[in-house]
């Protein structure tokens, strides 16, 4: 069987929420939340067996409502947050809650729908004062048990006590802009001791210091239209990538908010998600409502613009070293691969937390596709 071919998993429901199981670093696991207004929603716990190329799944019920956002915890691999849509006859509300997977992964789970266990509620994140929850972030390293939520135009900070199953709100701040501008997304900066976050509202990107809850920088008009997603370079502390409704992916150095470092215009519709590979920051994934996923290599802006420098320390003699250097042509920026397995808008894409070469993408029609970085590219990076 061809290792390179994608593995497709179909959900019965439409889905928008996807996350890698961040706390699980041994196995390739993803969590998918479904969106259905009329049937009880599910959380699919996906296990990808890399060797056999098989997908195993555990299905849990999500008792509250349709899932718009799901984030796995960095503290405890069984914890996660969802942002869900609670509907009644006359109104809908976006709520957030912390859940625990009821059991460890059980590959022998029966396929019987009625027998699906439900995820266990740890606690609700109370957002009644602030409006609809857009998304929730876990602390990037899991050092503290803090989570951040974005509700309409507020940033809210909670501290979770898992033992007592309570979440205490510790801080909040609002976006004091005129108009009805809401946060579209946010990302926790893994650098600077995790004291900063970046958010996007409308066409702007803002940076915040969560110790003071003050805005620290702004990239005005980062995109021509709405900014849909952003991500921090895991290795270069000032570099971020953003995407938006102008069909573009842009790279920024937050120290220079006036001009982007590079622009990729490869999608033919809005770009909904963009992700840095956690290990090799030249690999950029983006997904779009043109139902494509594009894997880019942006070596020039990565932390290893001249190839893997770590090799040089091990080289025995200078001659060898020179030869290696010479044989390595500087890699070019460009598209590595375009994945066309989806037939509807792809709203979410994420890298596996365990295997740097595996990623999953989820389209609205409920199709989850697991792909790998092409082997040629992988060897180019490793060797």
């Amino acid at each position, binding site marked *: 069987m061809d290792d390179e071919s994608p593995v497709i998993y179909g959900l019965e429901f439409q889905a928008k929420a996807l996350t890698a199981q961040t706390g699980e670093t041994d196995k390739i696991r993803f969590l998918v939340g479904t969106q259905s207004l*009329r049937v009880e929603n599910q959380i699919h716990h996906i296990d990808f067996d890399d060797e056999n190329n098989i997908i195993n799944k555990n299905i849990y019920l999500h008792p509250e409502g349709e899932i718009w956002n799901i984030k796995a915890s960095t503290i405890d691999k069984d914890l996660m947050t969802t942002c869900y849509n609670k509907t009644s006859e006359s109104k809908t509300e976006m709520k957030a809650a912390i859940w625990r997977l009821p059991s460890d992964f059980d590959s022998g789970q029966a396929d019987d729908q009625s027998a699906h266990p439900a995820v266990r509620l740890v606690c609700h994140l109370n957002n009644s004062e602030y409006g609809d929850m857009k998304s929730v972030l876990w602390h990037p390293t899991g050092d503290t048990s803090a989570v951040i939520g974005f509700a309409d135009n507020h940033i809210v900070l909670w501290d979770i006590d898992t033992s007592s199953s309570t979440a205490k709100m510790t801080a909040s701040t609002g976006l004091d802009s005129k108009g009805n501008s809401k946060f579209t997304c946010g990302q926790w900066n893994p650098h600077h001791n995790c004291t900063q976050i970046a958010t996007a509202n409308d066409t702007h990107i803002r940076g915040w210091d969560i110790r003071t809850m003050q805005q620290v920088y702004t990239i005005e008009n980062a995109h021509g239209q709405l900014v849909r997603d952003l991500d921090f370079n895991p290795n270069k502390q000032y570099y971020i990538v953003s995407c938006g409704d102008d069909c573009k992916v842009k790279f920024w150095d937050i120290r220079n908010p006036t001009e982007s470092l590079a622009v990729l215009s490869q999608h033919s519709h809005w770009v909904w998600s963009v992700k840095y590979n956690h290990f090799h920051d030249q690999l950029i994934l983006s997904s779009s409502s043109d139902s494509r996923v594009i894997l880019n290599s942006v070596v020039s802006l990565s932390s290893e613009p001249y190839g893997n420098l770590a090799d040089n320390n091990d080289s025995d003699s200078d001659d060898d070293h020179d030869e290696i250097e010479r044989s390595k042509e500087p890699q070019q920026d460009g598209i590595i691969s375009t994945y066309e397995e989806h037939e509807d808008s792809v709203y979410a894409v994420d890298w596996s937390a365990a295997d740097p070469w595996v990623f999953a993408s989820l389209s609205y029609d409920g199709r989850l596709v697991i792909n790998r970085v092409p082997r040629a590219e992988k060897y180019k990076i490793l060797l």
Partner: protein
Amino acid sequence: MSSQQEVDDGETEGSKRKRHGMLKMYYGIEKSGGATLDPCDINGAHFEADTYLSNLIKQRSLTELMDEETKMVTQIRALDSDMQTLVYENYNKFISATDTIRKMKNDFKKMEDEMDHLASNMATITEFSGTISNTLQDRRQHITKLSGVHALLKKLQFLFELPARLNKCIEMKAYSAAVRYYTKAKRILHQYQHMASFQGINEDCNKIIHQLCDHLREQFKDKESSAKDLAQCVDLLLQLNEPAEKLCEEFLSHARQKIDEDLQLLDRQIRLQSGEEIKSEGETAAQAYLATPMDVLEFVDTGCNGFLSNICLVIASYNDMFLSKPQEDENMDAIALKKLVFFVNELMEKYFDYVQRRVRLERETGDNTILVRSLDRFHRRLQAMNKLLPDTDFSRAGTDIVSKAAKDRVYHYLQSLKQHFSDCMTDVRQNLAAPRTVGKHDSNSYLNDLLNNTQTAVVDQIKSVLNNLQAFLDSDITFAMKPYFRGPFCVQGVREGLIVAFLNHVSSTCLEFCEDKDKGSAPPALLLILSKLCIEFEASTISYLLTLTEEQFMMTERFPVTSVTDLCNNAKDAAQKLLNHFVKVQGLSISQMLRKSVETRDWLNTIEPRNVRAVMKRVIEDITAIDAQVGQLYEEGVRKERSSDSSRRTHPHSYMGSAALRKGGQWNYAPSIDNSLMSNIQKLFSEKIEIFSAVEFSKVSVLTGIIKISLKTFLECVRLRTFGRYGLQQIQVDTHYLQLYLWRFVSDENLVQVLLDEIVCSTVHRCLDPAMMEPSVIDLICERG
């Protein structure tokens, strides 16, 4: 003795005869051969007495023999007597000869005596003459000495008189005579200067000569003195052994003063032209005249007449004085020439600098003829100068200036063209912004008019610029025919520097409008016009302009040039990008409307739809307006399935019902059916829709692009909301309304259908209580709205 003689004679005669016979034999004369060989011929050489005798005896009778014997005897006797006579005669002659010799002997003896006597006389004469000359010798030496002294005295007198004479000469201004006298005496004076008297004279002379030199120098330095005078001065000074190098320098520095005046005049003109110098008060009329700035032709004339003629004069006289005469020192010649060349180069450099500055000031005027004429004059004049001074090439430098001026003009024109183009753009913008008061009857061709006006204006402007530039190539302009001017000017200057650069500028300006940076600043109609402009450029204007240029400037294809294809590709590229941008901008504005309308409404709690929402009508209105706009400039384009539905198209209202029935059935599925399956199956058969993709240059394609973008936005927005029953129904009504009106704008009706279906499907998904509206009711509402 006589017998002897006889024998000799016989012998000789015999031998003679023999020889004679042999000769005859030799020459082959054999006529008488028979006779001579006959041994019986008594006179023959081969006579044999025995044979003869026996023959005679045999042949003759006795009497005859007797007669013969007597005859022979008589003959023998006669012969004997002849012989005796001969011997006698010979003897007599011998006797007389002996006598003569004896007499001669006596005569010689007498003569010898006389000769001796003569010799003694001669000796006496010699002795006498020796004595005389001895006595005269002393006196002759004396006389020689005396005449020598006389000559010396004469010379001395000349020397003594020299100072006075020189003074007189100087008084009479006969400098050349003075110099001649001095040069004659100089050597002697120099030789004998150790003697006191001569020293005095020498000093006097030197003093006078110094005076003379001073005089000459004064004359030399005198500004008023003519070239001929100067030449004479220099000549004399040279004869007086003044150092030639110094003279050269002096001469040149003297000449320089004059030329500097000319240059200052030019400089002043330049400053006047550039407006630096303000008129000082109290100038005379002439000065006032000079103070008015001349035009460039006048300037060049002044330069030619003043500066160039003067410098030519200087060169000519310098040549006469220092170069053309045979110099004793070769080095001197080279040095003098070097000085001259240096001098001339320096001045010419200055002059070129002035001319260049002046020409550069000529930027503002539009007319080239005067500039070209002045440049021509300048160029010609320089060529003439070239002949004067070998080894230097001013005409090259001059041509460089001309080329530079031409280049400047080209650059200037390019700037003005760019300016003109941006003016055109501003005009178009203003026209677009201005409310159309003239009434609607011309609104159909409004954009087209603007486009045509712009295009005509641009092309006309280019043509007039080309015409202006042609002045540089008039047939009566000398530099126009020089290949090193003409080639670069035509190809690099006019073609590449002007036309190609301008066309590229147009393309890049157009592309700038596509940049996001100044978004919103360019009205969409401008984008449309520019796009069409680029298309027109690509289709015909570019090749027309280049052909025109090449014809007018008679270009040969020797230089590598930017090809027409490249330019056309650029233009086409720009047109494509502009049109894409237009689609994007228009799609965006409609998207925004739709997005706002979806996002701001509370779809859960709406009332039952009674009307099509106003925003949908607005969308249709806008799209119709865009359609009209695009229709003015672009062709209709190709639609799919045109023939099958053509009858319906003309009557949209009759189509409405049937379409609603057809499509309505599809929408009217029971909510329990798995929706995603339906849409997935549908998707399997339809192609993937590229939303922001490149469009073709046709109205239908443009409109399709805009509608695609708008509907996709609609779809995505719907997916983010949650709907109640009536919300869904409202969407149903809205999409049906769009369906009714949008099909006519797009190339593929199916596309609209697919997108609208997807919107409804997604709405159904997002609906809490999906209950579809009756198609007939939808029809009714739509017809009403």
